């Protein structure tokens, strides 16, 4: 038995002991979304109980399991029983769960679901994986997220971690690339280039020094798939990187990660240190003769650095401006050496393919888009969070079956971030793959899915994205630098009700120029949100221009706040919160709202619903 087999044996024994622990084990979801919802208070509270009472139990931090809207999560695993999960836990509820569920009569509290291996109901509690949001998912890259301690390499090893790497070393680089070819895996960063081809080009490129770069500069606003994966299972990414570097013949790798993700950076650093210690990084990894060093490079906040050549410029210490291609990075990338750049999700998928085989991965997905894809399902949908689904699933299944639908009637879904487009009811039964989305005028992108309902204004959404791209344009190409700015100005006119019908033609013409006259993906795709909304929501543009009306009551200059006299109870709460004294009126009598003084800050509208005394006596109308 070699050293790694010994380590594997120990890891499996430890994991088994944990599953059959004689004391209860308590797990808390401590991803960024969990922490933002109050998980650190929950953690502190259970630590206090453990230290200051008769109760004896173990505590473990885990990553995000997916349904962010139910955070914070707390799981309890009682001796001889399964692991049960509770949602929306706060400090008080955590205490109750420990005392009454973990150490008391468990029938008093009802968990959300159990995380046992089998999907059968246990003691009347359904499997977590059978909940509507989880049922339609296929978790491959996210398989460990929320289950293991992301700061403990032994957990990862116990769940067959690094067995893909061992297979890779047995196969040799060429066969690894062949296995990826069979799998059909395409780049998960958005463009969908076949991963094996990228690797092949770089492997065949001349040069002794080669680089692998992991692109973790998740810049699309509305997307957090990479953050969740790194926070929940950093080892999967790192194992994928070793396999990729081995296939390419690279001995130096970088992870270019956003500085806005401090927790992900911290977990990667911990994981790298543990892997070095276990002989899984550094010189002669697992006696294969292969050496690899992985370094972190923190991005400094520039969306354009998601573009390969701009990312390379940034690592070299320059302004992150794209360079013209060819030469492609595979031939001449970082410091002029052959370089492969892969996305976090692509690399995180690799260990699974090497562990289970390319054919296994190939069974999921559509004819040209294989496997699973993670999406950040957000916006006006009931169940928000991170999901992983087989490609070919329809938008309807994602939005209604997984997301539970919208509260107000569905209007559009935005895919692909600022480079993507808005799709409508008409596309809802479209099976999602790289080709179908681009045919509809959008793109797959990295996986942001922003759902919009009748309360979202499409002109405002287009303005939002153009504003973003105009600010993030690096300025190198004139059509992008100036064109996006002009487009924002026109869209602003519409949202202020001062646009005219000729502006529409100008807008469309600039959009086409920017698309054709830009060097990199940022400029080439920046007009997409405008072009798709013009195509599918033309009437809404007309309403803004001709009727000076915003039906969704979003565009501030086109709306008015009103008090409905019949509903107003005269509770004075809105009078108290109004910063400009626009609302007046004595207690118990309907209030007055002076539109001249109103700055449309929304405070009265919110407080009216917040306290539910009147409920909805203040309305926004266009």
């Amino acid at each position, binding site marked *: 038995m070699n050293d790694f087999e010994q380590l594997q044996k120990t890891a499996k024994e430890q994991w088994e002991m944990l599953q059959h622990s004689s004391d209860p084990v308590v797990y808390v979801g401590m991803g960024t979304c969990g922490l933002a919802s109050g998980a650190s208070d929950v953690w502190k509270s259970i630590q206090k109980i453990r230290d200051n009472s008769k109760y004896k139990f173990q505590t473990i931090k885990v990553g995000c399991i997916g349904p962010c809207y139910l955070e914070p999560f707390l799981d309890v695993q009682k001796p001889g029983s399964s692991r049960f999960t509770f949602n929306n836990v706060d400090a008080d509820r955590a205490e109750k769960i420990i005392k009454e569920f973990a150490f008391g009569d468990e029938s008093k509290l009802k968990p959300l679901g159990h995380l046992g291996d089998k999907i059968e109901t246990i003691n009347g509690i359904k499997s977590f994986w059978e909940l509507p949001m989880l049922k339609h998912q296929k978790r491959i890259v996210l398989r460990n997220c929320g289950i293991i301690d992301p700061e403990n390499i032994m957990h990862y090893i116990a769940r067959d971690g690094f067995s893909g790497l061992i297979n890779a070393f047995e196969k040799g680089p060429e066969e690894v690339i062949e296995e990826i070819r069979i799998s059909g895996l395409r780049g998960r960063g958005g463009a969908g280039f076949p991963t094996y081809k990228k690797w092949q080009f770089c492997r065949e490129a001349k040069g002794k020094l080669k680089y692998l770069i992991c692109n973790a500069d998740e810049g699309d*606003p509305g997307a957090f798939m990479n953050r969740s994966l790194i926070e929940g299972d950093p080892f999967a990414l790192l194992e994928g990187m070793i396999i990729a570097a081995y296939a390419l013949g690279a001995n130096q790798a970088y992870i270019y990660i956003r500085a806005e993700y401090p927790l992900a950076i911290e977990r990667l650093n911990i994981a790298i240190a543990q892997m070095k210690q276990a002989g899984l990084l550094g010189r002669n990894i697992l006696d294969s003769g292969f050496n690899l060093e992985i370094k972190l490079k*923190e991005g400094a*906040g520039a969306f354009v650095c998601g573009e390969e050549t701009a990312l390379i410029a940034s690592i070299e*210490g320059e*302004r992150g401006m794209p360079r013209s291609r060819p030469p492609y990075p595979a031939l001449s990338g970082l410091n002029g050496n052959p370089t492969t750049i892969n996305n976090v999700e692509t690399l995180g998928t690799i260990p699974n393919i090497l562990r289970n085989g390319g054919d296994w991965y190939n069974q999921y997905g559509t004819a040209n888009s294989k496997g699973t894809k993670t999406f950040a399902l957000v916006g*006006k949908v009931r169940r928000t969070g991170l999901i992983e689904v087989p490609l070919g699933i329809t938008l309807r299944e994602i939005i209604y079956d997984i997301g539970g639908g919208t509260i107000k009637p569905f209007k559009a879904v935005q895919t692909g971030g600022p480079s993507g487009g808005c799709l409508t009811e008409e596309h809802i039964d479209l099976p999602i793959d790289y080709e179908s989305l681009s045919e509809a005028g959008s793109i797959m992108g990295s996986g942001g899915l922003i759902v919009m309902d009748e309360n979202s204004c499409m002109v405002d959404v287009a303005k939002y994205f153009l504003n*973003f791209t105009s600010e993030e344009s690096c300025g190198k190409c004139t059509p992008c630098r100036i064109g996006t700015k002009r487009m924002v100005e026109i869209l602003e006119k519409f949202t202020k009700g001062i646009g005219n019908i000729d502006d529409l033609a100008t807008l469309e013409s600039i959009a086409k120029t920017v698309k054709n006259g830009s060097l990199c993906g940022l400029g080439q795709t920046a007009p997409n949100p405008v072009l798709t909304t013009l195509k599918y929501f033309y009437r809404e543009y007309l309403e803004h221009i001709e009727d000076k009306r915003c039906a969704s009551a979003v565009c501030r200059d086109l709306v008015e706040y009103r008090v409905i006299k019949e509903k107003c109870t005269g509770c004075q709460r809105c009078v108290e919160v109004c*910063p400009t004294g626009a609302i007046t009126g004595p207690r118990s009598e309907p209030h007055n709202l002076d539109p001249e003084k109103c700055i449309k*800050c929304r405070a009265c509208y*919110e407080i009216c619903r917040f306290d539910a005394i009147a409920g909805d006596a203040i309305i926004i109308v266009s």
Partner: protein
Amino acid sequence: MSSLLNTLGKHFPECSKGDLIPVLQHVQDQEGYISSNAIREISEYLNISCSTIYGVATFYSQFKFNPPGRHSIKICLGTACHVQGGDFILSALQMEIGIAPGSTTEDGRFDLERVACLGCCAIAPVMMVDNDIHSRLSVIKLRQILSNYE
């Protein structure tokens, strides 16, 4: 040798051009912002001109050129936050503390920065005060949160 040059020598012994962004990040971490003095010292250390350093530093939104406040507010204007009313939160915030993004209040209590996405889209709209993320914001909730930071 100044204390800044001293720490640079310790953390970045290779002194290569590729270290520029990590050096700037290190300096901002230590001093809170990038002063013109710091740019001169970095220029001396890495042997890169001040104008090149300034050009690189201003390209990236992470770098600040004014001293920060006691508490740093990062307001998220990602897509999900926008769709959930993030714009209203920003204008309410500006009204409450009286400054525009990129500046610091006169009493030095807050500095305000807009960020593209904090990655907490499922619980939007969000903002980050120092290292705490506050989620599902409303104009009303915002006022309560700010009162916790003196």
